[in-house]
């Protein structure tokens, strides 16, 4: 059997693939957090719960309405985004004039309520969700076997991340958003409806989480607590990349996924803690994150 650095290469590549897939989810989720934080100045602790909601909505659509994976990939994020818009309009927007901590505590409480509600109805054990028929096989790449669905997850999340980056960095709407991150008051004084932009940004950011949830449904079981473990790591990634940086959150998400994969290969005992070790090092050397700008 082929070996690389003393490790059988299929094992190494297998772990890197898992790392890349985790990284794809980290990137999608931290990207949403970064966009929301940039525009609303809110650290959205409900992000993991809304990711879970995306997966659950896909499962509910299939179970009760017979709506399959592909439509769900569009419909579930739209539903989660609409829930986000409702949350922002009715509750979150009332906290903007108060200290940041209120937004954080509110979204934290909201996560507990959302997860508690789903646990109440569906328990914690989890529901299976089959991948779509066309993505059930796999490809032999020579050095490893790539299950089709995993390949799709990587491609889809990279496309969505790149599309979001383009939208924010290269369009007129994106220039409104970037300007509103710097000086919301001035952007309003130019006649741009910043409060509406904030509502839509929250909706968009949580829709990204919902999208990640649907992608995750066939990989992991759909369970009310699926967001909890993930979101802790994602917050560490946000700290590493620097809050508010779009490109930073994408690159850091993928990078940390790969580093976790490598750690799992070479030193499995540290695989679940390596991200926090990196976070601690970054906090010591560059407290505002690898890609973040220091705040005045």
């Amino acid at each position, binding site marked *: 059997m082929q070996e690389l650095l003393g490790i059988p290469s299929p094992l190494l590549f297998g772990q890197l693939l898992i790392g890349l897939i985790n990284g794809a989810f980290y990137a999608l989720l931290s990207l949403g957090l970064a966009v929301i934080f940039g525009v609303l100045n809110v650290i959205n602790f409900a992000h993991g719960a809304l990711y879970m909601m995306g997966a659950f909505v896909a499962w509910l659509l299939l179970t009760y309405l017979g709506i399959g994976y592909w439509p769900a990939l569009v419909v579930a994020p739209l539903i989660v985004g609409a829930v986000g818009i409702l949350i922002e309009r009715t509750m979150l927007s009332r906290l903007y004039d108060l200290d940041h901590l209120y937004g954080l505590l509110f979204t934290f409480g909201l996560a507990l309520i959302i997860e508690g509600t789903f646990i109440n109805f569906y328990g914690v054990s989890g529901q299976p969700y089959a991948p779509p028929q066309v993505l059930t096989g796999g490809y032999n790449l020579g050095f490893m076997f790539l299950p089709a669905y995993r390949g799709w997850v990587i491609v889809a999340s990279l496309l969505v991340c790149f599309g979001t980056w383009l939208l924010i960095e290269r369009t*007129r709407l994106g*220039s*409104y958003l*970037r*300007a509103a*991150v*710097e*000086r919301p*008051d*001035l*952007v*309003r*004084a*130019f*006649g*741009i*409806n*910043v409060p509406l932009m904030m509502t839509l940004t929250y909706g968009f950011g949580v829709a990204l989480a919902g999208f990640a949830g649907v992608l995750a449904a066939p990989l992991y079981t759909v369970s009310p607590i699926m967001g909890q473990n993930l979101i802790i790591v994602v917050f560490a990634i946000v700290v590493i990349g620097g809050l508010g940086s779009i490109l930073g959150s994408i690159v850091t998400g993928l990078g940390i996924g790969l580093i976790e994969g490598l750690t799992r290969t070479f030193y499995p005992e540290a695989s679940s803690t390596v991200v926090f070790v990196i976070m601690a090092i970054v906090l010591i050397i560059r407290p505002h994150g690898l890609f973040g700008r220091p705040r005045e």
Partner: protein
Amino acid sequence: MSNAQPLLRIRDLNAWYGESHILHGIDFEVNRGEVVSLLGRNGAGKTTTLRAIMGLVPQRVGSIAFEGTEIGAMKPERIARRGIAYCPEERGVFASLTVEENLMLPPVVQDGGLGLDEIFELFPNLEERRKGASGARLSGGEQQMLAIARILRTGAKLLLLDEPTEGLAPVIVHQIGASVERLRERGFTILLVEQNFHFAARLADRHYVIEHGRVVERFARGDIRERMGELYELLGV
């Protein structure tokens, strides 16, 4: 068509930042086509007056009428869309936007704004810097020009300029003065806040002096020469 009605008419404008009462009943008006200056010492309330007109000071009461419509309780985005544009004292050029994005940021709210060719004619330096990757890389003078230029595209009739000469070299001040002159000829109405009294004296038709959040004195262009002493005393020059 009646020209009797001022374009902007402010009566008994009061404003607060939290507990501190900053504007104590400001009264003045700006007629169509005029350049009017607000003078006054540091902290007199000039910037606060402009921000209140723009709807950016949430705690405000009193009457602000623009083209006869009461805008005193409107949100900033609605006020802007009625045709008032604001160039802040700190210029507000966005670092995360390219020079061109900065220039194109404010949406067109009405017909009659300047085209890019006219803008570059007024500010040739900006055309050279147009491809710049970040607004923050411009010099102070260029940032000031950009901050003025971007609000000329929008079709706004009334321009609020807050200390456009602050901290700039004399040659740039001169260039900005010439541009303001051209904008007046082009039919813009301008409310100009200035510390640089000589700059304001050359451009403005009328001056109001603000002190402790009140208009304490007014001067017409013709009065200035004979009332110079009085004015210097008020401004502490």
